[in-house]
């Protein structure tokens, strides 16, 4: 008779124990494997979009103010809005020359190995390759200099 009173308590304790173990197991599986993987995948998508936005901004800044017969010289500065961090970390966008030396490529560098990318910049013929780099979080500016001899330089600061 005394044993009968113990069984419900043991039963409930067992239930609670099993439930706690189960929650701990599921949490560890999710946060250990599934969630970081999804964060990286989402970060990779955002990285691609950021690089595409940066490339579009550089191409749009270089559009020359053309009027037939008029030479324009001066400097144009365009501020670009990019996210300050991707997946919680700051990143850099660097400009490099293509293999043949005439074109420009923007490279996204990020501490996480899943996030990164390269994109080629389509510039008009007389424009020198892009120089400079951007660090996220600060003010990102494209500086386009139209020289008096007709050459155009593009710099990222």
């Amino acid at each position, binding site marked *: 008779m005394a044993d009968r009173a113990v069984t419900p308590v043991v039963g409930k304790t067992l239930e609670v124990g099993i439930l706690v173990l189960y929650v701990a197991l599921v949490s560890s599986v999710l946060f250990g494997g599934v969630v970081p993987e999804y964060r990286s995948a989402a970060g990779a998508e955002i990285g691609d*979009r950021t690089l595409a936005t940066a490339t579009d901004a550089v191409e749009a800044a270089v559009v020359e103010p053309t009027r037939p017969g008029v030479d324009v010289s001066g400097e144009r500065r365009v501020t670009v809005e990019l996210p300050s961090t991707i997946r919680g970390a700051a990143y850099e966008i660097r400009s490099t020359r293509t293999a043949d030396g005439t074109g420009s490529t923007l490279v996204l560098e990020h501490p996480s190995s899943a996030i990164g990318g390269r994109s080629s910049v*389509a510039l008009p013929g007389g424009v020198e390759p892009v120089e400079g780099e951007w660090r996220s979080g600060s003010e990102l500016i494209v500086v386009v200099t139209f020289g008096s001899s007709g050459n155009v330089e593009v710099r990222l600061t």
Partner: protein
Amino acid sequence: MRGQANLTAVAVALVVLSGLTVGTVFVAESALIGASRETDDSRLATSLSNRLLAGDAPTTIRPGVLSERRFTNLSGSRVDSLVPGVATAAVAVRLDGETVFQRGEPAAGARVTRATLLGRTEHRTTSIDLAELRETTLPHRTDSVSLDVSTGPNTTLRTVRMNDRVVLHNDSGLDGEADIESSTRDPTRLAFETVVTNASSTENDTDDAPAVSAGPAPTGSVVVRYGYLVQNGATLEVVVDV
């Protein structure tokens, strides 16, 4: 017995919960795959359409106006030089639905449609008989005019004015061919100031009025040749599939 029954309920609940968790992870996975946006396709398609319509591009007459002659001869090397990233992708460029250039099968790629203008240059030649007319307004706006002057033996063409501005002047007479620049901002009005040399008198016309003297009429002709731009609306479509 009650403890065992509750344990069964707990086990069933845990199985249901696990099933729900796995199902949710699958849904999240498919959502993430569906969210992959193929950013390169749309970026390259936008870049190519911008570069095709840019003022400095070899395919345009001026920004936003495609040259009919040069655009319909679009080649792969021209497309690749405009946007280097497209060299390894399938590309299709269409104007009003007709394919101008295609490489590969870009059906699954990003498409950009732009409303644009297709332009071509038409030429017109008119001849002005100086005996009848010494002023004319060209029916089309143009930015360059070619003149071919041949005056008669008793006439000297001293000055040619365009929109009241002197563009050609020679006191001993203009003869032959000349090219003058005009502007498409205003209609082009040409005025020819002649001097007729009389056998009896050397009466000169004043410089600020065309010759309406009582003497004999000037002889000769001026052939005016000019080119003007004809523009029609068109739709440019660019499809890129990396």
